């Protein structure tokens, strides 16, 4: 059954949109069914397991389906007892709440932006919640998350309070970065969110470094450390040099990191297919010596299954994994993007695969929770988001004295002034009004 924690990476038994004939697959090498997005039914994909040496293309087969359909059949036969399910009620509600929080928060961001409460570039995560929730809810507080500019929901999933994120977006001093970062630079030392980066690909080496620290702590400092780092980035980033350089280093040193590709098919207005010679990103993992996995990123339970395995691998010291999540953003690239290039039919298709709706359906169908309980969660989240806006509204804007405060960790770095005193000792200095 899918939820057994073996070293295999397997699909879970939620229905796949396309139907294929079932076939039993080999233990260690499962063939994935291509999603309808790829268009070509003859593309067989391979799921590589830890134990098997990476052998690329030897086993391409035309119509083979993942274990999911097999299991789905099994599931239909037996009644869905609780032991067949992937999640417990508690887990289901946690996942649901997290995704609803992500969605509600982002919707509120859009509202606040158009009301002139936040400015600049704001990139919303609507539609991709399954990836954030599926992965981050498995982490401990000490594990690290590194993201891109589309980072509000990663921060929220990791545990940064909505109040702090909203304040940061409003540019208030109570924001998680004191208002100095903004939408694209969410950091939290307490929750180990290492950013928030505006340039794509820039965060991947940072994530690799965090994973390096984890390995260093274990092997050099002899501490009991099994912290894992997750690096989230998009399809556009996968053509960037830093991505490949880090895949190499992570696999070389077996760093405890999972590279999570949120392939939403579009890099602003550049379609992934127009930018990439081989659009199957998961394949690039084995080229560097790590497993490459493709998963349906609109389905939180599937993502979670893959995540359990990938994070587990990293924790056990077996090295990195590249996970490609096929997902979609319902809104434009940013709030400034008119989003005219994407085909309405494509948008409509993915709208039917809304991850929140899917999870809700799963929960209700499997009687994990009642409609009322889910509604209660939605109501609670609405209150949380409203409260965060109120809090942000009431928070003060940064004072001028904050201007130069955090440029240097050690403010002696501003140097010695003509009078022989360090500049930072001048109280007017951090306001930027002192004579420099």
């Amino acid at each position, binding site marked *: 059954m899918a939820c057994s924690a073996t070293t295999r990476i397997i699909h879970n038994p939620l229905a796949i949109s396309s139907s294929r004939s079932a076939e039993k697959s080999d233990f260690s090498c499962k063939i994935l069914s291509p999603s309808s997005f790829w268009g070509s039914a003859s593309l067989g994909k391979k799921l590589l397991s830890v134990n098997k040496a990476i052998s690329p293309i030897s086993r391409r087969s035309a119509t083979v389906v993942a274990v999911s359909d097999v299991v789905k059949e099994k599931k239909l036969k037996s009644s869905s007892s609780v032991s067949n399910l992937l999640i417990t009620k508690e887990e289901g509600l946690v996942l649901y709440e997290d995704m609803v929080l992500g969605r509600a928060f982002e919707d509120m961001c859009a509202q606040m932006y158009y009301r002139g409460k936040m400015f600049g570039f704001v990139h919303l995560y609507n539609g991709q919640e399954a990836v954030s929730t599926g992965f981050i809810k498995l982490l401990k507080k000490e594990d*690290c998350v*590194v993201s891109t500019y589309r980072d509000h929901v990663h921060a929220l999933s990791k545990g940064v309070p909505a109040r702090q994120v909203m304040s940061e977006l409003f540019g208030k001093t109570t*924001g*998680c*970065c*004191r*208002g*100095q*970062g*903004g939408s694209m*630079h969410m*950091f*939290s*030392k307490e929750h180990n969110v*290492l*950013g*928030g*980066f*505006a*340039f794509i690909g*820039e965060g*991947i*080496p*940072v*994530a*690799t*470094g*965090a994973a*390096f*620290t*984890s*390995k*260093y*702590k274990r*092997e*050099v*400092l002899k501490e009991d450390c099994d912290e894992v780092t997750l690096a989230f980035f998009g399809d556009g980033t996968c053509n960037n*040099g*830093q991505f490949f*350089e*880090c895949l*190499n*280093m992570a696999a070389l040193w077996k760093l405890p990191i999972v590279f999570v590709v949120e392939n939403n098919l579009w890099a602003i207005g550049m379609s992934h297919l127009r930018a990439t010679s081989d659009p199957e990103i998961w394949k690039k993992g084995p080229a560097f010596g790590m497993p490459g996995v493709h998963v349906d990123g609109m389905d939180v339970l599937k993502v979670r299954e893959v995540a359990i395995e990938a994070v587990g691998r990293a924790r056990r010291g077996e090295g990195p994994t590249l996970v490609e999540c096929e997902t979609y953003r319902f809104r434009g690239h940013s709030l400034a993007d008119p989003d005219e290039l994407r085909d309405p039919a494509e948008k409509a298709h993915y709208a039917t695969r809304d991850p929140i709706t899917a999870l809700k359906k799963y929960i209700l169908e499997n009687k994990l929770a009642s409609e009322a309980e889910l509604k209660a969660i939605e109501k609670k989240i609405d209150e949380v988001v409203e409260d965060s806006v109120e809090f942000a509204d009431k928070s003060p804007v940064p004072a001028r004295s904050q201007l130069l*405060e*955090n*440029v*240097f*960790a*050690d403010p*002696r*770095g501003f*140097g*010695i*002034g*003509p*009078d*022989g*005193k*360090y500049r930072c*000792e001048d109280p007017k200095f951090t306001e930027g009004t002192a004579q420099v």
Partner: protein
Amino acid sequence: MAAMLQSFGVATASVGFSDHSTKLSGFSVHSLPVIRSEGRSISGPINGTRKTGKVITKAVAAQAESPASAASKPGHELLLFEALREGLEEEMDRDPRVCVMGEDVGHYGGSYKVTRGLAQKYGDLRVLDTPIAENSFTGMAVGAAMTGLRPIVEGMNMGFLLLAFNQISDNCGMLHYTSGGQFTIPTVIRGPGGVGRQLGAEHSQRLESYFQSIPGIQMVACSTPYNAKGLMKAAIRSENPVVLFEHVLLYNLKERIPDEEYVLNLEEAEMVRPGEHVTILTYSRMRYHVMQAAKTLVNKGYDPEVIDIRSLKPFDLHTIGNSVKKTHRVVIVEECMRTGGIGASLTAAINENFHDYLDAPIICLSSQDVPTPYAGTLEEWTVVQPPQIVAAVEQLCQ
């Protein structure tokens, strides 16, 4: 004691730089005894406001030496790259979170031998041989620094760090600020730079000017074994990201340095030779060209004050200012390019702060704005040579 005298553990006579075929191995550094122009005790903090730990934060030698050489001198003699290594090793011993990463730093021992032997002592993870991916391993150092380590990134040649500019500028420099002060990036980025001996344009770059505007980083340039070790240690201990500029041609300078531990101040300049007539500000290799010119100038009756600014960002305006107030004339000698270089910034800073004290416009001698040519003669003319310095001082002091 005579707080006036500060000795670097001086070795004997130096060799001139004019002969380009001279090999640099076994060079001795002659530095004149340094006297602080104000009579303030060197070992005390400035105005009592600087926090000092147990380690001496200012450049003080073990004992004051009389200019006549003693029978057995204190301290030990070593070459500049060994001094760097000594500093590095001491810091790695002191704090297990200090680690080194770069190309060929481990098994190869570093392309200029700064990390020789360290991988054998500390292991492959603490002295990490990276693949050739500057941007990524510099970013990796940033990530490691954010999560608790204190990495030192070695650029095999400073010029290679141009590939890491994204990470140095955006992440090293900015992350402390954009995270609202939550994360510190205590990295040291170091490597050999400057114009060498016909290494060609790309290996002869002077990156000080490119990095100087990045908010959030500090830059220092070492020039003697003594300050190399002290600045290395200070840079490692600093919570700020520091770029430590070394020079390809200075690695084999020999000097006697103290046995006991010392850490220098990152933000301070070094008084090399006090004088009355003119202030000559310089750093890194040009210090030696200046000192050579100084000999000529002294013979001609001038009394130049030579200051090695050491801290390229921020400038030590106190030491520099005091000198300007005394001499009223400034010559800046640097290896950086003319346009937008350290000299340009320094000229602006001095003009803004000490304009009233200047009797003449500042003369700034920089390298030519040219990709360093390979041909020996052309390379020689790219960089400032001692005769030019002498001529500039003579012109200024008319």
